[in-house]
């Protein structure tokens, strides 16, 4: 079984996320009328495989598996899946899985690109408790933002159906839109708190004497993302921004995060020390 690596486990997990995505399309077409547990169980099965993959990777490097883009991306998806499995215990929010599984599948496929997972050197590039805290909290934050985007997608779908008097809005078993609005807001807030803790921890990480902190592309990008989410929260909580615009903002911010996360990481000397000697 030695040939069956953590990547294979993750590949299986992504395949099950894919299966869940296909099943979600059927749920959508059926109008979310039956509270079945199939999708939840599929995501639970994928999560178990996903966890095994991460644990194996962690043991193989004797460190929290957040050392390269593959591991970081896998961690983001894992935290989103974990958050969903907790939220999905509430029957009314179980259908969030139908919106989360395409996101998890997309992140999983992206993570499997070989360039993201170069072989480790004799020792991990990053070590230390503070580094683990920095990486883990930020990746958990991304997971919360991802699940928030899924909840926002669910909100917009249901709101559209209610506005345009689609019967499925009433006949479906989706939760009330006000609850989805609350869930989205709380996920973004939780993500923002974790993101802040993670960024703050990053400030105190040891770095090379000549490494510039505030000119590093990833630091600038992270500060920008922090401001984006701060603006979203302030507009929502203090300025009573409309829930529809907030939902669009949450989705747009997460898509932007996903699209730029890889690029800024590659450009960052702080996060790619081997490539930027």
């Amino acid at each position, binding site marked *: 079984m030695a040939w069956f690596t953590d990547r294979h486990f993750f590949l299986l997990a992504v395949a099950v996320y894919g299966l869940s995505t296909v099943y979600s399309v059927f749920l959508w077409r059926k109008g979310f009328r039956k509270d079945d547990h199939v999708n939840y169980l599929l995501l639970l099965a994928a999560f178990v495989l996903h966890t095994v993959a991460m644990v194996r990777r962690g043991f193989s490097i004797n460190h929290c598996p957040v050392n390269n883009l593959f591991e970081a991306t896998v961690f983001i998806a894992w935290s989103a899946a974990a958050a969903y499995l907790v939220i999905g215990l509430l029957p009314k929010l179980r259908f969030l899985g139908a919106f989360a599984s395409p996101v998890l599948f997309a992140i999983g496929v992206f993570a499997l690109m070989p360039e993201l997972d170069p072989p480790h050197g004799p020792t991990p590039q990053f070590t230390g408790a503070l580094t683990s805290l920095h990486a883990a909290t930020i990746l958990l934050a991304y997971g919360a933002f991802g699940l928030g985007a899924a909840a926002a997608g669910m909100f917009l779908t249901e709101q559209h159906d209610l*506005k345009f*008097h689609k*019967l499925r809005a*009433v006949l479906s078993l989706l939760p009330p839109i*006000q609850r989805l609005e609350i869930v989205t807001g709380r996920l973004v807030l939780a993500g923002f708190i974790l993101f802040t803790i993670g960024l703050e921890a990053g400030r105190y990480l040891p770095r090379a004497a000549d490494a510039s902190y505030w000119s590093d592309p990833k630091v600038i990008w992270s500060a920008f993302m922090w401001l984006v989410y701060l603006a979203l929260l302030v507009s929502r909580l203090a300025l*009573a921004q*409309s829930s529809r615009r907030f939902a669009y903002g949450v989705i747009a911010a997460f898509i932007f995060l996903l699209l730029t996360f890889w690029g800024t990481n590659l450009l960052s000397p702080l996060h790619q020390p081997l490539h930027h000697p």
Partner: protein
Amino acid sequence: MNVVVIGLSHHSSPVELRERFAFAETKIPEALKSLRNLGFAEAVILSTCNRVEIYAATTQEPAATFAELKQFLARWSETAGKPEAGSSRCDDRTAQRAVPTNIGNELYTLAEPQSLQHLFKVACGLDSMVLGETEILGQLKQAYALAQQHGHTGARLNKAFQRAFHVAKHVRTHTSIQRGSVSVASAAVELAEKIFNSLQDREVLVIGAGDTSEKTARALRSRGARSIIVASRSHERAAALANELGGRAVPFDDWAAEFEKIDIVISSTSAPHHILDRAKLEPLMKARKQRPLLLIDIAVPRDIDPAVNFLENVYLYNIDDLQAIADDYLKQRQDEIARCEAIIAEKVKTLLETKNLQPRTSTEGHGLNAAPAKL
């Protein structure tokens, strides 16, 4: 011993005929006693607005049984036709109804296995006027309890009724026959539950005190809506309705001032023009800090300009929209009938097989109020 049923329902007869045969609740024990004197040791009388039925267990041939039960019904209705202090579940005037001159073909008579199938269908709400409604199950339980309490049930009816209650529960759990709202008022409540996190603490404004708006407000109140504000051109009517619903009445011209607090509006005035349009609602929504607002317009002509639905966080539904929801649920329930009937057929078959397996004893027919067999 076979279970038979004789009766009439909204399917077979008009209300004018049904009311002649209705049993006042206080008179049912006496009627059951009369049935026992006729040789029907086990009997249950179900008398509701939509049906009057006698379920009996007998060893006689069905034809003879039905003839006897028909005569009993005729005699009973003549006796009960005299004014008396009996209470009815539907109408207080039941006791003063006209005496029937004849019993026509409106009476249906069913012997096993159809009688058991009928009992199960009644328990499941499949024979009800509102398909799948649950009130009938409560009425059936009450009728059975009354008969049991007075010692008019035995092993056969106990088993049949207990099984009917069990089947009703099974059908409710495993099919969608009772799912959804099939009335405009309950569709409105369901809609509100799709918008608001909870109906607790929601304030409802009723503009114009019509019958449907009253039912809708009542349904919202029963689901936890905090308060009802009523605005009607007739302040007396508004005050009466508000009093009934535990709310408060406001002058008709002041309803807009309540918008800051309220979450749901039910409008049913007889105004010939829109009483609420986009220009009027836009500043009100700002004052409400864009909280969701459900507008239910059940007036014809409509009270609310459809253009308000384009405003953020405003959800406008008119009478046709609500009726469409109710109709769709009804269609769903109708689609479930075949599944329910298949379950019922299976359960009746099992019940009859159990009966056939049981050895006949000399005490059969005398086991009144025997403990119901485990189902």
